[in-house]
């Protein structure tokens, strides 16, 4: 059993898929970081905001002054190139992982599943020797070159990709998505001005077709990618699916990330061909091209024992399988309470929006003031905060701190929060008289969230 498992993880396989994956990932993150800089989002997300909403357990992560934030993004650009060209690879991958994850941890209102995915992949890239072929590192040190690598180095990325699609698909198996075709019934007609497909999007039937096709696609695409016969078709379906959603929805670089990453599923010969084509554009020829005569698996060279790697993989896989399912431990409708919602590959799954009005009581005068959120939050932050219970608590704490700092004795912060979910009439998310200062966020059930009434 153990030997079989070891064989599965540690058998030697050609390094090409990992090399292509490295190149495409570096290219995607380079484009993504450049886009972020050009859109002026460094300022919008990290410099101009007066409040940052924190991740539970990462409250200590704060934003740094504008020049530092810019430098961090420039480091990310360089690190992306480092990954792409396999130059100072480990340091590049580690730098990218640290900088990117740091930026993501600054403000949870910008949380996106694909940012989480990029963080995970960047972390995994730190562990694998993706620079051992067709790279600057090999050009500098030809003895590093190797043509094979342990199988787990590729499997772990394939696993991660399948997890993304599969959980996204499972999440779509719910009443609103399948039976009411919601939220697509809202989102598709909003795109009826698109050329060619636009005219079709007005019809309810389109929402049903997209809902069901999307669910089936997400659940099955992993299987079809693994299967050699169906692989190419599955990848074409991925292109169509992501390009279509990319046109219709404001989802940034996500389509690009997924289309590029899933290429790893193709076989060795395909990747060899890709590298051959790349060589036409960009040749790296070591002065003395020597492959190490007896290519040892990478982990030996790095002093990592096979059992340590095996343990790591078991932990990683278990976490990825179980963590998205933690919502099962919570009460209530997950879409409504959002308990266990994040880090679960629940993407474009619901149309939700809220209006949250906060009231602050000063004990000196016993006056209750109503807060103008626009004074403290940008529209994006307000939109996210107004429907997520843990962020509502954070904002209440911020208000307390803010008004205490300017000399008031804040004894109570309460909020009237009306939320609409999938076009249902808006209803109260929490009791409007609740003193939010008496509550603290935790992993425990948030019993103070009102239950969701259908109609």
């Amino acid at each position, binding site marked *: 059993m153990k030997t079989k498992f070891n064989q599965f993880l540690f058998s030697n396989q050609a390094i090409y898929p990992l090399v292509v994956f490295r190149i495409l990932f570096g290219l995607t993150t380079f484009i993504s970081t450049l886009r972020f800089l050009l859109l002026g989002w460094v300022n919008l*997300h990290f410099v101009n905001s007066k409040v940052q909403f924190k991740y539970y357990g990462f409250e200590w992560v704060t934003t740094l002054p504008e020049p530092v934030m810019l430098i961090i993004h420039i480091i990310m650009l360089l690190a992306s190139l480092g990954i792409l060209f396999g130059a100072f690879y480990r340091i590049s991958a580690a730098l990218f992982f640290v900088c990117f994850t740091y930026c993501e941890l600054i403000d949870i209102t*910008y949380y996106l*599943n*694909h940012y989480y995915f990029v963080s995970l992949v960047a972390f995994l890239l730190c562990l694998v020797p993706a620079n051992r072929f067709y790279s600057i590192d090999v050009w500098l040190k030809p003895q590093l070159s190797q043509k094979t690598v342990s199988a787990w180095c590729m499997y772990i990325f394939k696993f991660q990709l399948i997890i993304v699609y599969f959980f996204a698909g499972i999440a779509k198996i719910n009443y609103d998505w*399948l*039976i*009411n*075709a919601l939220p697509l*019934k*809202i*989102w598709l*007609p*909003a795109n009826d*001005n698109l050329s060619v497909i636009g005219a079709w999007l007005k019809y*309810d*039937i389109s929402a*049903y*077709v997209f809902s*069901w*096709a999307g669910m*089936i*696609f997400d659940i*099955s695409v992993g299987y*079809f990618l693994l299967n050699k016969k*169906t692989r190419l*078709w599955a990848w074409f*379906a991925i292109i*169509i699916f992501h390009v279509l959603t*990319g046109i219709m929805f*404001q*989802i*940034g*670089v*996500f389509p690009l990330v*997924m289309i590029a990453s899933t290429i790893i599923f193709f076989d060795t010969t395909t990747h060899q061909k890709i590298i051959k084509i790349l060589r036409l554009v960009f040749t790296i020829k070591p002065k003395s091209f020597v492959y190490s005569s007896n290519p040892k698996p990478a982990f030996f060279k790095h002093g990592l024992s096979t059992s340590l790697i095996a343990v790591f993989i078991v932990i990683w896989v278990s976490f990825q399988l179980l963590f998205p399912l933690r919502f099962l431990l919570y009460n209530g409708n997950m879409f409504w309470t959002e308990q266990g919602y994040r880090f679960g590959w629940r993407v*474009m799954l619901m*149309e*939700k*929006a*809220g*209006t949250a*009005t906060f*009231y*602050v009581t*000063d004990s000196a*005068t016993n006056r209750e*003031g*109503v807060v*103008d959120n626009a004074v403290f939050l940008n*529209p*994006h932050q307000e*939109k996210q905060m107004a429907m997520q219970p843990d962020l509502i608590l954070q904002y209440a704490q911020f208000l307390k701190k803010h*008004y205490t700092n*300017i000399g*008031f004795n804040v004894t109570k912060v309460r909020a009237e929060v*009306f939320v*609409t979910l999938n*076009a249902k*009439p*808006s209803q109260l998310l929490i009791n409007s008289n609740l003193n939010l200062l008496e509550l603290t966020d935790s992993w425990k059930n948030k019993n103070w969230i009102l239950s969701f009434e259908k109609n």
Partner: protein
Amino acid sequence: MLIPISTMQKKIAIVSFVIAIVFSSCGENEKKDSDLVKFDRGEMLLNYANNLILPAYNNTLENINDLGTSITKFELNPTEPNLLEVQLLWKKAILSWQHANGFNFGPASEQGVQKSLQEEIATFPVNTLLLGNFLLANDTSFNNFNRDTRGFFAIEYLVFDSVSPSQVVNIFKTTPNRFNYLKACFNHLQKRVSTVVNGWSTYKESFIANNGTDIGSSTSYLYNEFLKNFESLKNYKFGIPLGLRPGQTATLPQNVEAYYSGYGTALAKEHWISLAAIWEGKGLNGMDGIGFKEYLEKVEGGPNLVVLTKQQIINTETAFSLLPNKKFSDAITADFNLVNNVHTELQKTTRFYKSDLSSLIGIAVTYSSGDGD
């Protein structure tokens, strides 16, 4: 759609397609959904442009021009009747502006150092101290960012000044600089508004053509500015003067809109009427065209929201109708509860105009990326 290849995949695709058709036809039978989604945003934008936006701006500009004529007349002949005419025409102009101030985008949006039209010409309260300094120095250059020393309300301060008309006439007669400053304010106001009116003659076409719902589309501009405009009525015309912000310990009657003329109540009412008209798509001439209301009638969950919103509009109108017929600053002190009731009703309106409306129609409110699929 999937591209079916293997038989198994084909089967799955066919089965899902059949199921989808079955379910969607069920839906149609129940709610006549087939009628629900046919909405032409282009037609809606055309209605907004032709029947609301352009008439409102043109009307404002015409009234501003009339105000200019009366100011010239008053300068030539500074008498009480001529001042009263200036005051009357100022009121007419600022009332018509209430119907245009919701369209603070496109040609009216911020450009370089120039702020949006709303900020450039309708900032209040007036900084009378600073204005007094400029006046004393006969500085009419406006080479500064003190938007609270010009625009509609600087003119109001100059021609009303909280004193009797005969006193105002006397002040003008004894301080000739005041005429200079008044004319400068008028010229600035007239120039800003006519620039926007001219801008619309070319912008109109792209406004109607840009008929998506993403950020940067006309519908999203229209909606987001509508919402901002509603918030500014609630927060700046009621919330702050009423002393409702956390940290405020008393009312701030001198912070009301149009403090010197005392027309705050009339302006707020007109502003509210204009906001309701934008929601309904009702033109300046009273004709009800295609607007957000009609859009909602065609989308999932929309008809229900229309009913709720209409009821809330009626409730708010009732609260407005109970406002006492006196200076707004006096009403805030003497009839706090009546004014506060309007704020409460506006507060209740917020979710109908804000998250409920944008969520159902699917309008983008931020530039940031959403979660991809």
